[in-house]
């Protein structure tokens, strides 16, 4: 039973939160994610949820409060962007190492500086090694659907890790789009009640969470944490299958768009994938075999599956909406190239940096990328492997 509406990405996520009715939300406002706790706090004030809303004094406190409440046994969440995520940094790792399935609605915004409030992925990409599951959304519908699926993945017994559901700041968070919502009872039935196996408020079971791990324990703890993160891949697929049965909308580890027979492939994350699909459509109409792979799950990174999906591509463009300052590639480029290398696939891969600090990226820009890929194949000259798109020279 779907409900048609028109909502901003922030509103859509806030509604998903209302439908989930978590136990605790701790949050501190920051553009462009402010609207999520703002909208949700009105649900709290109106008695539409029975969530304890904690208006904390900083994002470090927001994540710390979420860790405390989740450890106590409460289903907890928060939302943030950019420098807010940066201020959470220290405790992001604690949430993951303590195996607390907190959900975080991240509205991607660039990290300062130069100071800028608009979209790029430098915030979440910086946190990619913090041990959180990361899922990215192309549009408002995906942001909503991914958030509805979040706890089912994070709380799974084989996983028990925090999860970050990302969407692009302003581009999807503030823009209003048509959307199909699930009925409240369907979301509640799908997500279910939270019954943690062990929690601090259980007086029958003394429990210490987050003890000091001397060097005799630390490596084993990390290795076990890695296994849980790897398990999130299959769980993400299983949950998506159940979600498809409920909603009719299908999700995987990534989306392949006209990729099967594509000579030239583009790998991309987030809202710009929608623009790039328009470029693919235009070039397909002109008889060119181009396609696209849109990342949904970035952590854990489904490298084997991505390499298999790209095995027929002759030239590949990896689109990074962040600068890694290693002089060679962005985080997506590094992951994809590493996955191809391990699969013994050696196509030319051009890594583009685009859309930093909210720089607009157009269908024409992506057509230029595909034209460059075609030129590389025809001239057999890769040229520079690391490029900036739509940069004033």
């Amino acid at each position, binding site marked *: 039973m779907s409900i048609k509406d028109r909502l901003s990405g922030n509103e859509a996520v806030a509604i998903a939160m209302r439908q989930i009715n978590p136990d605790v939300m701790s949050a501190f406002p920051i553009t462009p994610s402010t609207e999520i706790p703002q909208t949700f706090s009105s649900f709290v004030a109106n008695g539409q949820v029975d969530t304890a809303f904690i208006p904390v004094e900083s994002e470090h406190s927001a994540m710390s409060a979420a860790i405390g409440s989740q450890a106590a046994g409460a289903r907890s969440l928060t939302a943030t962007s950019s420098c807010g995520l940066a201020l959470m940094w220290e405790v992001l790792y604690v949430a993951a*190492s*303590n*195996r*607390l399935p907190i959900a975080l609605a991240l509205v991607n915004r660039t990290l300062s500086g130069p100071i800028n409030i608009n979209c790029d992925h430098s915030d979440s990409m910086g946190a990619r090694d913090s041990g959180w599951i990361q899922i990215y959304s192309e549009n408002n519908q995906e942001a909503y659907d991914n958030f509805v699926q979040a706890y089912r993945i994070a709380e799974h017994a084989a996983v*028990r890790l925090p999860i970050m559901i990302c969407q692009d700041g302003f581009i999807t968070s503030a823009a209003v789009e048509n959307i199909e919502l699930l009925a409240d009872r369907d979301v509640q039935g799908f997500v279910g009640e939270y019954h943690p*196996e*062990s929690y601090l408020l259980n007086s029958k*079971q*003394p*429990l*210490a*969470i*987050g*003890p000091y*791990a001397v060097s*005799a*324990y630390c*490596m*084993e*703890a990390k*290795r*076990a*944490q890695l*296994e*849980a993160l790897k398990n999130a891949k299959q769980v993400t697929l299983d949950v998506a299958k159940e979600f498809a049965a409920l909603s009719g909308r299908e999700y995987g580890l990534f989306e392949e768009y006209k990729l099967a027979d594509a000579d030239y492939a583009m790998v991309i994350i987030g809202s710009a994938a929608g623009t790039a699909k328009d470029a693919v459509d235009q070039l397909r109409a002109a008889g060119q075999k181009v396609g696209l792979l849109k990342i949904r799950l970035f952590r854990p990174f489904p490298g084997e599956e991505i390499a298999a999906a790209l095995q027929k591509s002759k030239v590949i463009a990896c689109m990074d909406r962040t600068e890694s300052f290693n002089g060679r590639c962005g985080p997506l480029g590094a992951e994809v190239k590493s996955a191809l290398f391990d699969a013994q696939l050696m196509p030319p891969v051009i890594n583009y940096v685009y859309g930093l600090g909210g720089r607009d990226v157009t269908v024409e820009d992506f057509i230029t990328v595909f034209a460059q890929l075609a030129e590389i194949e025809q001239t057999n000259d890769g040229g520079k492997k690391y490029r900036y798109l739509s940069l004033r020279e």
Partner: protein
Amino acid sequence: MAMDGNKITETVSWRNITEGCKIEAAGNSRLFNTGDWRVDTPVFIAEKCRQCLLCVSVCPDSSIPVDNYQRGDFDFMHCKGCGICAKVCPFGAIEMKMGER
């Protein structure tokens, strides 16, 4: 669920270590040998001791056991040899041995 602090030990494999190193038992910090950090070691001279228990109250690690208002010898599994007890003792009943375990 059973209260079992033994699920997490220094020989447990990564497959069996508890999630996030959580400890499903209470009062087990006493099992953690912090005494091996010690450089200098206090020596209790029982015949000089008047049982004023000043040393007990200043010990940061609860390493001076008390039974029926009488202190006994040090708990060397937890004493880090800070020497505060020797400093406060009015009767010279605690001496620090340099570099001795």
